[in-house]
């Protein structure tokens, strides 16, 4: 059966209740008659033979680039950088795309007699990956061949000795990236393009850069000018990254970009109802839902969390393209859009979201309140092109338990940000001017980032800046079923039920509002006409 495109449902009295994620749980909610629900397109058919497709892409590069085999020569210095744990979501079943691509690249390198090869995880300011995570991403073969020899490193944005300042862009933005990558004869970047934001010049210019570089585009001003950051052509975030990427190119660093796209097959069979339209649920789906719900509702949250984080997604590669960054990314973005795009007519007064248990920054971890805000206001809100789904001054309603809970290993600075910064102000600009520097330079966070598995001290600030566009655009944000203390700390309003939340929303948008629900995951991009 060919995949059906995305779909906008108009809720009528025959419409069954709609699935809402609530972190590690989910509920069925009755949406008012006349509401709209946006469903993601069904998963596209994956590539029949991904390995052959990768080989083909490496041999037939796009844009102004020679085939990879022609770029490899004995005695050269080759660095392979790849995306970190934040992609894809949820982590994919083995074999991971990165493993498949890197193995092919290494095969070619071996054929060409290249000896000096290093692998770098493009962490930027994310946490370092653990050994099992790395093994999952790049496979045991690659790991065992490189890690024991110290040839698999994780980019360290605080290692002054291993950063190289390349100069400043026309706009005065510092470009500072990983020295090994910058001094290689060839930098191969292996990307997974889960959403339209990923990839392109952002891969190297962000993934391998330092705070000094990042602060030029990871700030409230840029984020407010990125409408949305999922739409490269209207995103100041991307403009900055493109400027930097071109500077990197002009500095003589040869980047061979390999980008891949995935289909939206997000949940394994046992949870397939999570990506189905409710009225098409079969008996099996309903039994599965009732069973899972009963179990999850009774299970302590930490067990439910462990359960969900052990879920590997069955998504499969739908395309792979390689070569010159911009030419490659153009095709990649088109493919992402083809899989995820849904045309939606008109903006809505109220947008509802069911927030799941996972975001890019809490794989194998807790979706803490800051990440809840970032997932809703940062990611889901920005899943649009042209216009936001919700009108200016409209209301965003999200369902999530939002517990006052943090993973102290992964998110130490988040705790302090939540306790000490958000208690003072929630205004992104003020947050930035008063607190960012202190957190960015705090030696403890730097220590944990470099030696442990902690996000950099400044990372929670970026999460908050991610929300800046939404915070400026929205009239109110309501979290349903959240811990009121955390919700208030975020500066949002707390409601017990969706019905209460809609009543509260009416105070803001009037008594007969329009309502749209974004039925994600699976990820979709709304093209708002």
């Amino acid at each position, binding site marked *: 059966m060919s995949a059906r495109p995305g779909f*906008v*449902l*108009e*809720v*009528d*009295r*025959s*419409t*069954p*209740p709609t699935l809402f994620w609530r972190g590690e749980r989910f509920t*069925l909610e*009755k949406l*008012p*008659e*006349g*509401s*709209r629900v946006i469903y993601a397109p069904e998963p596209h058919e994956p590539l029949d033979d991904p390995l052959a497709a990768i080989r083909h892409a490496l041999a037939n590069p796009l844009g102004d680039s020679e085939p990879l085999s022609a770029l490899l020569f004995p005695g050269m210095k080759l660095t392979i950088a790849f995306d970190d744990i934040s992609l894809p979501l949820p982590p994919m079943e083995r074999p991971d795309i990165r493993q498949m691509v890197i193995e092919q690249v290494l095969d070619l390198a071996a054929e060409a007699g290249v000896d000096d090869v290093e692998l770098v995880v493009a962490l930027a300011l994310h946490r370092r990956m653990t050994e099992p995570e790395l093994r999952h991403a790049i496979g045991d073969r690659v790991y065992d061949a490189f890690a024991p020899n110290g040839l698999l490193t994780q980019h360290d944005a605080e290692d002054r000795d291993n950063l190289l300042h390349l100069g400043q862009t026309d706009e005065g933005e510092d470009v500072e990236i990983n020295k090994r990558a910058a001094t290689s004869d060839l930098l191969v970047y292996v990307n997974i393009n889960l959403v339209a934001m990923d990839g392109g010049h952002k891969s190297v210019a962000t993934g391998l850069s330092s705070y000094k570089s990042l602060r030029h585009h990871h700030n409230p001003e840029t984020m407010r000018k990125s409408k949305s950051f999922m739409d490269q052509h209207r995103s100041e975030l991307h403009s900055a990254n493109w400027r930097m990427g071109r500077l990197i190119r002009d500095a003589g660093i040869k980047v061979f970009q390999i980008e891949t796209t995935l289909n939206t097959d997000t949940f394994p069979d046992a949870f397939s109802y999570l990506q189905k339209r*409710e*009225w*098409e*649920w079969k*008996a099996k*789906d*309903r039994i599965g*839902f*009732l069973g899972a719900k009963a179990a999850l509702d009774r299970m302590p949250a930490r067990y439910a969390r462990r359960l969900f984080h052990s879920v590997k997604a069955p998504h499969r590669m739908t395309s792979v393209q390689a070569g010159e960054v911009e030419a490659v990314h153009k095709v990649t973005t088109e493919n992402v859009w083809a899989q995820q795009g849904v045309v*939606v*007519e*008109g903006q*809505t007064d109220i947008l509802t979201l069911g927030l799941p248990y996972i975001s890019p920054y809490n794989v194998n971890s807790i979706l803490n309140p800051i990440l809840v805000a970032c997932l809703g206001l940062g990611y889901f809100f920005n899943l649009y092109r042209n216009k936001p789904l919700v009108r200016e001054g409209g209301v965003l309603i999200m369902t999530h338990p939002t517990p006052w809970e943090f993973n102290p290993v992964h998110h130490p600075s988040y705790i302090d940000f939540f306790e000490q910064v958000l208690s003072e102000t929630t205004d992104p600009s003020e947050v930035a001017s008063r607190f960012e520097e202190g957190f960015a330079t705090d030696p403890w966070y730097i220590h944990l980032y470099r030696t442990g598995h902690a996000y950099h001290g400044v990372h929670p600030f970026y999460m908050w800046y991610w929300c800046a566009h939404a915070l400026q655009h929205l009239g109110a944000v309501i979290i349903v079923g959240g811990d009121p203390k955390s919700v208030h700390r975020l500066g949002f309003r707390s409601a017990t039920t969706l*019905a209460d939340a*809609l*009543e509260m929303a*009416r105070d803001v948008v009037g*008594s*007969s*509002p*329009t*309502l749209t629900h974004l039925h994600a995951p699976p990820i979709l991009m709304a093209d708002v006409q």
Partner: protein
Amino acid sequence: MNSRRDSSRSLLPTREVRADAALGGRVGSTLRRLRPSALASRAGSAHFPLAAPTWPGTVPRPAPTPELGVHYDTAWSRRYPVRLARAIVLDNVTRPVAKVLAQPRLRGEDALVGLDTPLIFAANHASHIDTPLILSSLPQHIRHKTVVAAAADYFFDRRWKADVFTFLLGAIPMERTKVNRKSAQAAADLIADGWNLVIFPEGGRTPDGWGQPFRGGAAYLSIRTGRPVVPIHLDGTRHVLAKGSSTIRRSRTTLTYGLPVWPSKDDDARSMAARIEAAVAALAEEATTDWWTARKAAARGESAALQGPDAVAWRRSWALGPAPERQEDIAGPEENSWPRKTRR
């Protein structure tokens, strides 16, 4: 009616709103204003997901994909756990029950000795007890790897029926009259896959006790797969449970296996069907006389026709002879019947 629905009814949309919606003529994904009371008023399909979901009126329904009759997919019933469960039920429930009810006498089992599977078993058909009886009587190595061709319109017309019979008997759906390509293909694939097939070439149970003409299905499959047809004759099953009857009585039955009928090069389905029918007729003769007598009659071409005299109903019935004397007639007519009738 519960109070929730009452309240929902009392809050049904006002006429103006309805009219407004109609005038606006908005369809599809365009935005609609929510009624202020919309939230409180909706009860709708409150029982989902316990009950099946209703279909939104705003979504066009796709043409129904046929899932029943010959379109019913029985593949699940041949997965190992299901086979195991069926084997357990067959050996511990179906078989003992069939033994007790039908008290089968087996004849000609040696016809199966040394035959390679898969085989096609073709039997005359008088009763619902026939299938369990045949399954119960087959040697163990065949019994648990057998599917039964069952009338698609009768056994596969409801989901639950299809599920039950597929599970219990390993039934596969087949048309009674003209076998279409899909079901023939499915059956042939199964035979090629090593599955034995039980089929009733008459296409249904006898209405009066006499046989009906054999149709070509069994013969067609035999010719197509090159596997032999083992004729089976069942005698007396009509007295356990006849067509149209709802009472089950204990009665003695006889099940006779015949020598396999192999498809020959110049057979077509019609000619081979005739040979199968003749083989079953010979077995019928054997059931009432003895093997030697039957062989002689067959050699003379004088086996009593399965289909009985071409006459009015009472004469056909008369020609069947009296029903066997049954134990329950001695014990009392109602004693062993089921469902049991209440006695005054």
